[in-house]
């Protein structure tokens, strides 16, 4: 119970900080918007609706991945100002509570971006979903969590490294590749309705398994990373 309230405290702090500056969400929104525009120009989605349906899942996730990397790099910088992070390390609360609070906050930001992005995506790519659209309500949060949980962890790992901005994508992309594969396949399967529902369910189950495994490892190892010296 105490652990839960610690997580909530951290979450509330992050949300309040973001509310005052709105740096991350605004930055991500504009970034994803640019990615969508760039891809629309590169592929001419209106002319080829079938191709668009086949690639739009991938474009969606690649855009979100890049956008969340820009925000994740910043998410720990706030803690470094005025040695807040040192204070966190000395605080009697569990280190993993700090991690979970931060990861949940980042998850929330990316979900806001997705909510704004979805209609834009549909308009610009002239999409209409052929499969069970409600499945996306499961796939999107699961996929987002897979990106955000590892991203938050490795942003903390690269915190005191040289070339921090470069290091995060270099680690995060290889680690997330299986998750990206799963969510892109599931999303594309839903949008095109060409994939057997059994396969879509397998992809979603695997994605959930990935989330569970990596969340556990992140929680177990976060204290080591926070206190690495």
């Amino acid at each position: 119970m105490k652990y839960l309230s610690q997580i909530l405290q951290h979450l509330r702090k992050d949300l309040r900080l973001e509310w005052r500056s709105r740096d991350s969400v605004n930055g991500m929104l504009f970034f994803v918007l640019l990615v969508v525009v760039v891809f629309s120009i590169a592929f001419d989605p209106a002319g080829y609706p079938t191709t668009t349906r086949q690639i739009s899942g991938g474009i969606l996730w690649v855009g979100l991945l890049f956008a969340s990397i820009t925000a994740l790099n910043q998410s720990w910088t706030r803690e470094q100002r005025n040695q807040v992070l040192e204070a966190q390390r000395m605080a009697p609360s569990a280190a993993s509570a700090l991690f979970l609070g931060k990861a949940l906050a980042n998850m929330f930001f990316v979900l806001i971006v997705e909510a704004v992005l979805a209609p834009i995506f549909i308009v610009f790519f002239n999409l209409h979903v052929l499969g069970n659209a409600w499945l996306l309500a499961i796939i999107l949060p699961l996929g987002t969590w897979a990106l955000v949980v590892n991203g938050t962890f490795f942003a903390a790992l690269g915190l005191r490294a040289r070339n921090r901005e470069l290091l995060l994508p270099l680690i995060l992309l290889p680690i997330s590749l299986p998750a990206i594969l799963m969510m892109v396949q599931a999303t594309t399967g839903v949008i095109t309705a060409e994939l057997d529902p059994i396969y879509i369910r397998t992809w979603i189950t695997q994605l959930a398994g990935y989330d569970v495994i990596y969340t556990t490892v992140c929680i177990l190892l976060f204290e080591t990373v926070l206190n690495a010296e």
Partner: protein
Amino acid sequence: MARSSALRNAAWLWFLATVAVLVVGFREAIFLVPTEATMGDVQRIFYYHLPHAILGLVFPYVNFFASLAFLFWRRRDPLKALTADALAVASAEVTVLYVGVCLASGMLWGKPAWGIWWAWDARLTSELLLWLLYVSYLLVRRFSMAGQTGTLAAVLSVFAAIDVPIVFMSIRWWRTQHPAPVFGDGGSLDPSFYPAVLWNLAGWAMWGVFILVFRFALERRRQLAEQEEALRAIEASLEISQ
């Protein structure tokens, strides 16, 4: 001194034995084993590809267990932890090498056999991913600051080690362009090919162990030199303050 010269002799013996086994393996693979019926001589790449593929799955786990040992000893026994860290570096570099050779030899085979260098099927992708993961491991070592390299790299190694079986299970989930497993249940390898496969597997395993130990010894030397340097710096600073 006696110990180090004995070790050096052992290393030389091991090296010579490795070369001998590799020579036997080469002779078996190139001259003795019958030519494969459908693919012809191109198939002989297989005798180099397969050992590297198998060993490229063994060395990541050496890295994983060395990293776990490092995390365990980090606070309890820093000197043992340093040894574990040296083993982790060495095995990561050997992993990158072996997986790289596996990918390259696979591509050399793929061009004549499939007509394309590369296909994005499950097994090729997962092998490439393995390679990428351990390159990023080496990059983390390069980028992180002096005092924390071991810890951060060990943490990343745990993530990489989880990823490897996830990705390798994916072979079983799809039909792939890559040939199905040739050993074990439903294996399609004719017994007349076994000598070449086994000699090469043994030879490349011995070679892998050799370069692993060599790199490990090098890393140990670097660590000892670093410690000596630090000690000298401390002593020098004490002299100034007096």
